[in-house]
């Protein structure tokens, strides 16, 4: 092979990679740096200040919205993880009629455009609540409950995918050994299967949690007027004006999500070596 050509190509590749990394990190750096700027439009560096963080912590609406968002993510993750793990077991361990159909049903939520799922849920809730009103005389309203239901619906599939991966690599002989030694199915599950696939379940749960925290579109469509949630709040504030308070909030969210991801990597790596 000619020596010169690959070197020139290699240099180009290196330059391209460098430029792409700059493109990827510029916004993050800008966001963090300008959360400390004294410029009230937050687009220039005019001096160091912590006032935006102070103002952020005094903003009760934003704090309330953050707590609501964490609540939604926690509850929906717990539900989606339990249901998703059960489905993963059914899919991996059993052969049954309709299994292919279920496989398809599980994949559609992953590939469907989020906005279609969001407006379908909005339309469904409105219709269902109208029927409940007509039959029972009480009209439920959209709020935390509807957001949680929607988040479970769109995260289940992701949990199933992750848990199935860890079930696939599971050595079934361990369960047979437990059964041979006299353990009943529940004991086998509790003491053998569960501890071994726990890293997979935790991985699925963390993925679901991250998706739920990051989601905007489905939350936006399924929340109600009286409920304030973080992404919806941020959207409203960003639409109104650029203010460094959002930078401060973004910086904190960045730190939180990076911590979360590192934590999940750590848990999964430990699971693999254990």
């Amino acid at each position: 092979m000619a020596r010169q050509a690959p070197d020139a190509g290699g240099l180009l590749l290196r330059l391209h990679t460098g430029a792409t990394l700059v493109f990827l990190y510029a916004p993050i750096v800008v966001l963090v740096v300008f959360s400390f700027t004294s410029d009230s439009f937050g687009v220039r560096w005019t001096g160091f200040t912590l006032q935006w963080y102070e103002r952020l912590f005094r903003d009760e609406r934003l704090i309330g919205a953050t707590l609501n968002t964490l609540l939604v993510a926690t509850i929906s993750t717990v539900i989606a993880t339990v249901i998703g793990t059960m489905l993963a077991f059914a899919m991996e361990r059993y052969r049954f009629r309709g299994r292919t159909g279920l496989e398809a049903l599980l994949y559609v939520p992953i590939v469907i455009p989020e906005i279609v799922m969001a407006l379908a849920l909005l339309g469904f809730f409105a219709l269902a609540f109208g029927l409940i009103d007509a039959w029972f005389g009480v009209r439920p309203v959209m709020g935390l409950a509807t957001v949680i239901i929607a988040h479970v619906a769109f995260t289940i599939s992701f949990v199933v995918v992750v848990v199935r991966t860890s079930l696939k690599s599971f050595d079934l002989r361990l369960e047979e050994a437990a059964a041979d030694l006299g353990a009943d199915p529940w004991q086998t599950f509790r003491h053998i299967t569960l501890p071994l696939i726990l890293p997979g379940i935790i991985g699925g749960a963390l993925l679901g949690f991250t998706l739920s925290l990051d989601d905007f579109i489905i939350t936006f469509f399924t929340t109600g007027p009286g409920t304030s949630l973080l992404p919806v709040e941020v959207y409203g504030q960003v639409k109104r004006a650029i203010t460094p308070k959002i930078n401060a909030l973004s910086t904190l969210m960045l730190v939180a999500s990076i911590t979360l991801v590192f934590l999940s990597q750590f848990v999964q790596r430990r699971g693999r070596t254990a």
Partner: protein
Amino acid sequence: MAIGGITAAGARSGARRRLAMLLAPGLFWLIAFFAIPLVVVLAYSVAVPGPTGRVEWRFTLENYQRLFGETLYVSAYVRSLWVGLLTTLICLVAGYPLALFIVRQPPAWRAALLFLILIPFWTNFLVRTYAWMIILSNNGIVNTAIQSLGLPRQILYPGEGAVLVGLVYGQLPFMVLPLVAALDRFDFTLMEAAADLGASRRRAFWRIMLPLTAPGIAAGSVLVFIPTVGQFVVSDLLGGAKVDFLGNLLQRLFTRSNPPNWPLGSAMAVIFMVVLTVAIVAYFRATAEERR
């Protein structure tokens, strides 16, 4: 397997019961809160929009007729598909060399690079879009740089260019990851073999590397294309809500317009799904052809 008094049939019915228990909650949730809502959209799309925004349950095809008849809707479809295509293409052209560079690094470097590419995407995507608003704003970094070169200030945001930047930024890793997976399976000695047989590097790339990594290209393209066509936040924030994309119209028809028009919005969503399915099936057919 029969322990004690349990017969084979008993064990089988026990397994059936366990399976039913495992399936019940998930099936319920996916059918009640995913499948049925999609059917509801289909039903809304052939219903009549009432004057106050209430849906009247009479069958009509007028919503579909309106979508195909009015330029506003047709042009939103065309624009969304076009921008989706453009974003996919830019991500592919930028992502392929990046993936190539990554797979040719020693393992430790590779893992680090992949990690570096993913970190920005663990932030909320509203926040990432917001960051571009800051960078491209009138007094932002890009304009400061332009002015320091003695050139006049440019209006970069809001505008279509800003939308494209925001979309590419948001979707790039979804292209890079499948490409890395595909290039990882690619046998680079094939390129040497091609060179030995007298093929130029360019020819070897087009005839060997590209067709053999086509599955990765296809997967990445679909992952980028679908969310881009359906988005409304990036065009709303970085485009200044001036040009309508499919997502913006859907959002308005469902939540903001006075009165809301759910049947029309539903018809729009149904057509969106049909167009998307057709586009993706055609695309996979084409890339399968390429591989042969």
